[in-house]
């Protein structure tokens, strides 16, 4: 772990080189990610538009392709209003704490077996730890706004994220049992050999729980009570305007892509090709992640919002028992001659 950092610590010049090289890699990751976020919002509006027999954005650029750019420019030009009763420092800290974990988690996400910023042994654990910090942005924003709507939204969101994190964590325990590793590259390579080797089959209940918990974790419809336009206006970010609001937006979509990427890596074989005669490559990673993202948009266009107590019930009384039972099943099956089915 942290091999790059530790080994080069002996020589300062090597250390500086490491830092600069790491910064270059981070830029090479963040810039496409931000573009991906921008065009995910475009894709969302287009896809939901088609599902509702509308056209979607089609004015700015060819087929509305420049719409996300126009939105970003508009938000940049807007004034950031800080309410008089707000806690100034924390009000500004809120969006920062929302986006920082959303980006930091990407450090260990591999795109192919060599294309990764930091290949660490406990990659899965790192992702869980970092994403669990995202909730601070929401809570702090809701509290610092000094507004009842924002506070209610923050409380709902925090309770929801904390509940679903447990089910999510248990789903990941199943994956690490099957892969016998916390390293994301090893997890993907454990699924080598074609479509039937992917962990989605032996761990199907965990896959379903992970995907749905991921939707809940990112506060997306149908689990978006934290924003609930009809009851608490926009929830925790109701007092935010301009770029401060846009940062929350970026964090939400970066988290969506992160969940989709993790689902791809852990259950859908990452960059591995589904059939033997086609080569592996990043194109498969992109296609699978894109498909999971499409599911996110599809859910939003299909399902009505869950009631709050039903969300809590689903998390605590349905998902957690399912995951615990399936972990026991996986552990038990590994002791039998059929254990190879779960590797």
């Amino acid at each position, binding site marked *: 772990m942290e091999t790059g950092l530790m080994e080069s610590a002996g020589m300062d010049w090597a250390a500086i080189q490491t830092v600069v090289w790491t910064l270059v890699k981070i830029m090479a990751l963040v810039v496409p990610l931000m573009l991906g976020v921008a065009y995910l919002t475009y894709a969302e509006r287009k896809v939901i538009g088609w599902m509702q027999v509308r056209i979607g954005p089609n004015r700015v650029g060819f087929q509305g392709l420049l719409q996300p750019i126009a939105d970003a420019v508009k938000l940049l030009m807007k004034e950031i209003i800080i309410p008089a009763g707000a806690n100034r420092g924390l009000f500004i800290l809120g969006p920062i704490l929302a986006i920082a974990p959303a980006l930091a988690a990407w450090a260990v996400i591999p795109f192919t077996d060599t294309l990764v910023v930091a290949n660490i*042994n406990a990659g899965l654990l790192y992702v869980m730890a970092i994403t669990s910090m995202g909730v601070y942005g929401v809570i702090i924003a809701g509290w610092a706004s000094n507004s009842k709507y924002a506070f209610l939204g923050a409380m709902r969101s925090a309770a929801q994220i904390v509940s679903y994190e447990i089910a999510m964590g248990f789903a990941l325990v199943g994956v690490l049992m099957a892969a016998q590793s916390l390293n994301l590259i090893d997890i993907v390579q454990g699924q080598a050999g074609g479509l039937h080797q992917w962990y989605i089959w032996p761990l199907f209940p965990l896959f379903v729980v992970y995907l749905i918990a991921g939707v809940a974790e990112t506060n997306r419809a149908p689990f978006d009570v934290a924003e609930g336009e009809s009851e608490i206006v926009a929830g925790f970010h109701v007092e935010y305007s301009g770029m401060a609001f846009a940062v929350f937006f970026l964090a939400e979509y970066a988290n969506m892509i992160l969940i989709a990427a993790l689902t791809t890596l852990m259950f859908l074989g990452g960059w591995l090709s589904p059939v033997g005669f086609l080569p592996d490559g990043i194109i498969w990673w992109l296609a699978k992640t894109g498909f999971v993202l499409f599911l996110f948009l599809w859910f939003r266009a299909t399902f009505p919002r869950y009631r709050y107590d039903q969300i809590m019930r689903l998390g605590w009384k349905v998902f957690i028992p399912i995951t615990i039972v399936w972990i026991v099943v996986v552990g038990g099956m590994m002791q039998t001659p059929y254990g190879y089915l779960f590797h």
Partner: protein
Amino acid sequence: MIYTTAIFYFFSAILVLAGLRVITARNPVHAALFLVLAFFTAAGLWMMLEAEFLAITLVLVYVGAVMVLFLFVVMMLDINLDKLREGFWNYAPLAGFISVLLVIEMALILGSRHFGLDVMGAPVPHPADYSNTKELGRLLYTDYVYAFELAAVILLVAIVAAIALTLRRRKDSKYIDPAEQVKVKRNDRLRIVKMSAVKREVSGVRGEEKNP
């Protein structure tokens, strides 16, 4: 080694400052947030000691779960600090005595004879494929399995006790059984009546309409 030393002092300075602010901040929410910062920097220091698993778990458990719930409670409460400080001088002598005792205890343990660099040297760097997590798991489930299982049982008892203490059945709660809700079919709630259309008489009085 300047690089690692600089990182160490950077983290330590933040940790000490954050720890001080936890007890000096007037706003309880600020204090809780400084505690989060303290945990996070402590995790950074553990990382430098090559205790990666523990460092990440510290962030996952304390920052990601415990402190979120803590903040939850602190934000909900309306804490009046002036009232909390009322008896400050009454308690000061006792508190002072306890803090002096704590400092002496710590000095005894952390004295350079038991805790110096020659006794606790820098951790031996391990190769890249060395898995801290695996080693820890192996130790926990072999050498320390009884202690580990005992701790787990104590935690389980604590969970059950906490739920039992707070569980109360309210008579006026409008409980809905989700299974019953899901089972409902259209015919349980809705009756479709077939009626033949009746032409409205133009000259008739309103009250005589057959189909209201």
